[in-house]
């Protein structure tokens, strides 16, 4: 029987009636603020989890709310509400307005829609995909991980997606709406070796992509890779401690850039003078081989944005070009206060949070060496293949990131696995020690979440194979 053809949906009603949005903007300005913004968010989150070969749970959450911000000079008033009736919302706008003191009749705000590019074409909202198909993903991943090796005894698989619709309107007349779908499949394994040894593996991916993404990026492949990591590191020896040459495998290793330079280039730290990159524009802060880009326009990227959470379009920004610092990451407030323009970097976790400058997808431009050439040139060092999380102190520039799968390099060859390694350094120093950059540029598969001031946002990172000299490796071996 032929399926009914669905008529193309008429232009959808905005998340909140525009006359009410305008009323809220006026209320937020009523005490003399210079700028006001209304942010409306409706999100549906679906998650399934599997543990010990059983689908443990399936869950769905629906959250709607409005955040109102009023700005005067460097002062911000912020209030939010998950109650959508007009009285509650007006009270919210009046609370935000309290940042300013005085009276002001704003008059009407003429909102005009910002035409937006599309970097993520998710045709069917992920929230509308039947949960049974999501459950199928974790089942397949689990089966593949277990089948990979008998020593893989614990497997946890999780799939989560979010369909988030936003509307941003401000007193500059900007009105932007976007639907931002995001999904992620992740598998973690524990392999058991001799004498009670346990090693872990983790792999996964996703992005702002159609559910069909998992036809190519198959759950079986995800499960096998997680299992491979856990098994490959059985019998690992303690990581050698102290300074050495490291070679980073492509992809998720881009967390190096995220921590070593990215955060320090966020304009709030720059304006306050608390980042070690203050006043260094035009200066050499990295090796000539290093060109760093923050790019909100990557197709389907986990950190990609048609529009940021302040209504500005996502952009591709060159932060460091051939070692020279070229720019910072600006949100509306910090751009305004320092006479710059927003780079579409204003992001927030939800309507419960005020926006701040954040990264999107941060990656290193490729060089011209093959990974084999790079490895072959190292007499003694550490090859870092998979990575855990990282963190940075933006004032002294100290950063760390954890290496979950690493091997010794001896005479240009990858030899024994090592355990418990982590890298520590100071951002600019580490980037000055980059001595080879591969041609194999690659983004991470879509795993990263970045935390700042208690707010989490999805991000992407990327790196080709890279050699860095004289990096301190934390470990316990000799």
């Amino acid at each position, binding site marked *: 029987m032929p399926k009914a053809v669905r008529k193309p949906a008429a232009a959808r009603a905005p998340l909140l009636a525009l006359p009410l949005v305008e009323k809220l903007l006026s209320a937020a300005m009523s005490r003399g603020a210079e700028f006001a913004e209304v942010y409306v968010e409706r999100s549906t989150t679906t998650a399934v989890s599997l543990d010990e070969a059983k689908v443990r749970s399936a869950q769905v959450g629906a959250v709607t709310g409005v955040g109102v911000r009023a700005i005067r000079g460097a002062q911000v008033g912020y209030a939010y509400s998950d109650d959508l009736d007009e009285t509650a919302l007006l009270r919210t706008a009046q609370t935000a307005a309290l940042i300013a003191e005085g009276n002001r009749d704003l008059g009407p705000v003429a909102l005009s829609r910002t035409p937006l590019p599309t970097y993520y074409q998710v045709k069917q909202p992920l929230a509308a995909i039947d949960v049974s198909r999501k459950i199928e993903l974790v089942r397949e991943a689990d089966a593949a991980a277990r089948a990979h090796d008998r020593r893989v005894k614990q497997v946890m698989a999780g799939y989560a997606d979010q369909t988030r619709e936003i509307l941003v309107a401000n007193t500059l007349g900007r009105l932007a709406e976007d639907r931002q779908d995001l999904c992620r499949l992740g598998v973690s394994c524990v392999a058991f070796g001799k004498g009670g040894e346990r090693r872990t593996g983790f792999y996964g991916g996703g992005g702002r992509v159609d559910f069909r993404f998992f036809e190519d990026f198959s759950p079986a492949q995800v499960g096998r890779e997680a299992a491979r990591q856990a098994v490959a590191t059985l019998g690992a020896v303690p990581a050698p401690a102290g300074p050495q040459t490291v070679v980073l495998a492509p992809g998720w290793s881009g967390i190096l850039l995220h921590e070593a330079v990215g955060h320090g280039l966020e304009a709030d730290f720059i304006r306050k003078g608390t980042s070690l990159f203050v006043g260094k524009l035009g200066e050499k802060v990295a090796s000539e081989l290093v060109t760093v880009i923050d790019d909100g326009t990557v197709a389907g990227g986990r950190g990609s944005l048609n529009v940021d959470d302040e209504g500005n379009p996502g952009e591709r920004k060159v932060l460091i070009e051939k070692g020279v610092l070229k720019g910072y990451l600006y949100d509306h407030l910090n751009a305004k206060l320092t006479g710059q323009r927003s780079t579409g970097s204003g992001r927030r976790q939800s309507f419960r949070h*005020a926006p701040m400058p954040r990264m999107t997808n941060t990656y290193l431009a490729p060089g011209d060496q093959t990974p084999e050439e790079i490895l072959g040139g190292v007499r003694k060092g550490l090859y870092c293949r998979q990575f855990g999380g990282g963190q940075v102190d933006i004032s*002294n520039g100290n950063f760390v990131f954890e290496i979950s799968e690493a091997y010794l390099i001896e005479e240009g060859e990858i030899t024994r696995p090592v355990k418990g390694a982590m890298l520590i350094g100071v951002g600019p120093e580490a980037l000055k020690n980059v001595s080879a950059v591969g041609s194999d540029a690659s983004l991470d598969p879509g795993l990263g979440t970045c935390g700042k001031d208690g707010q989490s946002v999805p991000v992407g990172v990327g790196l080709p194979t890279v050699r860095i000299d004289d990096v*301190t490796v934390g470990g316990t071996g000799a």
Partner: protein
Amino acid sequence: MEAQVASRKARKEQDAGLLGICEQLVALAKKAGASDSEAYAERTRESSVKVREGNVEELQQATSKGVGLRVFTAGRLGFAYGTDFSREGLRQLAQSAVSLAKGAAKDQFNELPRGSQLGRGPEGAFDPAIEDIDPAWKLRAAHAAEQAAAQVDRRVRKFDGTGAGDFLARSAIASSRGASAESRASYAYLYCSPVAEADGQLQTASWSDTRRRLAELQAPEEIGRIAAQRAARMLGARKVKTQKAAIIFEPQQAAGFLAGLSGAVNGDLVYKKSSFLAKLLGKRIATEQVTLVDDATLEGGLATRPFDGEGVVSQRTVVIDRGVLRNFLYDTYTARKAGARSTGNAARGWSSLPHIGTSNFVLDRGTVSPEEIVRQTQRGFLVTAMLGSGANVVTGEYSRGANGLWIEDGQIGHAVQEVTVSGSLLDMLQAIDAVGNDLDLRSSTAAPTMRIAEAVISGS
């Protein structure tokens, strides 16, 4: 004053509805076909101020609510949450949870707590003074902290921010197995994050305090002064050589070490043999000086509560008793699976399923002062701040970035940065050779100063 009384009354009326919302949901879930169900709701109010260089930088205020519904249909688990408390919103939530359960596996251990497991332990503190806190008080406190910080040292001139805030929470739980309870909590906090600068080096530090009672909050001037001293003393920090030496964790860093360790006593990881402590129950795993408890009934504790996220009565659980591993932590599901009893450690919010988490996770105080511990250290590293997550409780390895101060012959010397501290968690526990008398419940995971006789420091 009148306005305050009125708003208080309005809040009371709203709050009275919170348990009612949960009970409605349980009834709706039954109608939708659930064999058992449990609803958990929260309503919170938060308010904060932030100042910087003498100016107000941010004022935030909001109330927020949400409810989560856990259902079992024939042993299958479904969960749905939302913020829509309308009758229609609740009905949809119930239907959605029940229909989701169909996709989950049948699991004989899926059951709600009942009977004598449910109940109330001691209430955590709720301070009306925090409920009625004057916004002007927060601004004054933040300004005072910043001003005090700016007077400590000429090299402390920049600030990331200084702020104050309060947080009120009311939660309610109802279930088809007889849970029906409400509880409330209040918190006030104050923090200061200055940046010290000299010779092209920037060093930031932060000091904060959070309490359930307003009167117990550390004085703003003290918070500012300590924060600035901590930033200034890090100036000139440099790497040290790779070596083995004693590690002294300041109280906050010792608490961080315990927080990392807490996963190792999580009953779920233990059951799956995925904790390095899984097979060591009843064994000596640490020195005699180590007694570690999880205590949701602790007077003055930030995580003190009458019942856990499933309505199970709060209790005190000795995890390590004078070096011997005595107990793991459980929620109802894992306890049933492992043949143990719930220790009242179900942690949750309205948007998450219950899972095992610590309450007040506290290392008992010792008898030595922190100054004495430093004096008795020939060569060591006093760790004052850390980077990264550190402990891997599956493999039992520990490695974490560290900043701090070098100790030589019992004296504090130069500042240290860009090094890591690494070791095996079991070796580190068995090398704890001094525990300070300076326990202060500034966070729900808390510890006094603690020394590890030897670990690896990776540097130059």
